[in-house]
């Protein structure tokens, strides 16, 4: 059992970091503005997964005192990262919405989404 948990250890962290890297790669190399925003949002997802998995405890329970289980303090997973991720998700949504609004306006202005054609300013 311990061995499997060790695998899980690597897979969850690995998945989170891979998501982060894939998102970052997309954001840095892709030419389409929407793809860039998509990459940023995938990157955010990766960080959120990373944060939640840091707070996880083996065989832990959710941090809720349900009736009859009020004394299981030690078994509860860490609630702090969950609260932080809650905040971060909502903030990330706000940023994504603003980004897409900017994309729509850029498209109206330049009639293209290609970042290599929108360069009135230096990139």
């Amino acid at each position: 059992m311990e061995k499997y948990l060790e695998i899980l250890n690597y897979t969850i962290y690995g998945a989170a970091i891979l998501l982060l890297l894939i998102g970052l790669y997309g954001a840095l190399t892709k030419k389409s503005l929407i793809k860039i925003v998509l990459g940023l949002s995938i990157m955010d997802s990766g960080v959120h997964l990373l944060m939640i998995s840091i707070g996880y405890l083996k065989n832990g329970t959710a941090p809720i005192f349900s009736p009859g289980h009020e004394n299981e303090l030690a078994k509860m997973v860490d609630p702090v990262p969950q609260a932080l991720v809650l905040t971060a998700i909502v903030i990330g949504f706000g940023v994504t919405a603003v980004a897409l609004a900017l994309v729509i306006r850029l498209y109206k202005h330049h009639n293209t989404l290609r970042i290599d054609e929108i360069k009135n300013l230096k990139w």
Partner: protein
Amino acid sequence: MIYLILTFILILLMIGAAVYAIWQKDLLYAVIASGIISLLLSIIFLILQAPDVALTEAAIGVALTTIIFIIAIRNTVRFEDEHDKKIKENKIIKPEEQ
């Protein structure tokens, strides 16, 4: 044990969806793939004992973010390489050819 296998499958699917989302030229499919990432992510959050976050991710990541992306795509173009297509159809002329 069953959770371990489930998590492993979910993670594989999620990475696959992420790669697909970045690789796919059709932005609509890419956005749907990113919605799938959020969906799988919310299940993983549930397995990691974070029901609050799972609920939020399901509502925001799957529904709202995806729909806003789709609206943005509808207002712009659907394909990533829309430029090459336009050149092929001679709709726009490259600046140096002018």
